């Protein structure tokens, strides 16, 4: 589908070619900020089921990963904070969907470790809490740490970036970076949905956030950029 190091694909069909039931997906974004909107829509339209999704949040009702919840496409959801979504609450409490709550920093580091070839690491986060249940512990300098394992590589890692070139070099914008750079490193197939595709050489090599080696497909996206909490001065 792609030629040489040219990662650019022309359609969402091509971007998600190979997507199947029961796959592991990682999806970038914090709340609705920095989510790959068109790719998520395409996963929803494809109707694949039994997905395991790793994402900090689960969108809101009817938007972001909320779209996959509506169609009951997610079997297991792994995230740190999933409270902005009424349907999520229902699926969780009824047991229709398995949920693995993971501290945000641990989630970020597990994803980073996945991409970096590190199978596990010790962290103090969650020591002595429910999060530590069933996990190996070790004491360093009098402080307790728990062993956290990396994830398997995602079948599809879906990220949103601001700018890309056809080699898949990525630059993120403001706080829309969040989980996207780590998730970009952790996919068997990493797909970047971007606001703008530029020619190689146009992105200053000093300011590349994600080098193209991590990225397999790039698609020009179109984003609504919905805002979850619109706050302005004086309110």
């Amino acid at each position, binding site marked *: 589908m792609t030629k040489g190091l040219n990662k650019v694909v022309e359609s969402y069909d091509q971007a998600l070619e190979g997507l199947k039931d029961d796959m592991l997906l990682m999806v970038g974004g*914090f*709340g*609705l*900020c*920095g989510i790959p909107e068109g790719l998520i829509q395409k996963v929803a339209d494809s109707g694949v089921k039994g997905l395991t999704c790793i994402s*900090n949040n689960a969108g809101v009702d009817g938007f972001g990963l909320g779209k996959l919840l509506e169609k009951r496409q997610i079997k297991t959801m792994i*995230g*740190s*904070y*999933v*409270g*902005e979504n009424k349907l999520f*609450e229902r699926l*969780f409490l009824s047991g229709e969907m398995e949920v693995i*709550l993971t*501290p*945000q*920093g*641990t*989630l*970020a*580091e597990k*994803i*980073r470790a996945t991409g970096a070839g590190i199978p596990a690491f010790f*962290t*103090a*986060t*969650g*020591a*002595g*809490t*429910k*999060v530590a249940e069933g996990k190996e512990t070790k004491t360093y300098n009098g402080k307790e740490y728990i062993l956290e394992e990396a994830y398997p590589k995602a079948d599809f890692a879906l990220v949103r970036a601001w700018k890309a070139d056809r080699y898949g070099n990525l630059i*993120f*914008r*403001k*706080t*829309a*970076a*969040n*989980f*996207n*750079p*780590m998730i970009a490193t952790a996919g068997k197939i990493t797909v970047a949905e971007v606001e703008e595709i530029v020619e190689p050489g146009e992105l200053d090599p000093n300011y590349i*956030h994600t080098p193209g080696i991590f990225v397999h497909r790039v698609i020009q996206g179109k984003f609504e*950029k*919905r*805002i*979850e*909490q*619109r*706050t*302005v*001065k*004086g*309110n």
Partner: protein
Amino acid sequence: MALSKQQIAQRIAKELKDGYYVNLGIGIPTLVANYVPDGIEIMLQSENGLLGMGEFPDEEHVDADLINAGKQTVTAVKGAAFFDSATSFSMIRGGHVDLTVLGAFEIDEKGNIASWMIPGKLVKGMGGAMDLVAGAENIIVAMTHANKHGESKILKECSLPLTGVNCVKTVVTDLAVMELKDGAFHLKERAPGVSVEEIQEKTQAKLVVEGDIPEISF
């Protein structure tokens, strides 16, 4: 009289020091940003990837790509930096943040904090709270002293699932400022017009009262 939420925030702001990097949690802690003392320079860290968080934007500067950890649209101050979530939690877990202010459902005399889950009710998730309490050297808890039925939230032992163990050092409630030392809360200041006896009554944990306890000033 018990302090308002704004007054709790105002009192906590007195703990800010020149040159501090500070993470403010959602709720009362967020209000601390409104009371930064004159003449000092601090930077606010927001765990979704912003160091140098500014105030809310004007209508024309609202940017969907620039939010805080509460998912509110914000601005970035001059000299701010954006970064990914792993870098953000390197700052937090690595002990680079000078002060963390967060809310709690309960705290106890062992320094434990419960702030993320009430079994049987909605579980929203812990977000970054467990990382923050595990990484910070300096944590101030902002909370109400008792629940709406008058039952103490300053306990011998937390009843709710914990966010972190042995990490609480200072707490500012609507009634008092207390410091945790050697398995007991030490009463340092009381809300104007609130008696030591009332604080004692609403504190289930061991409370040490030494000498005259001054009223909180702002």
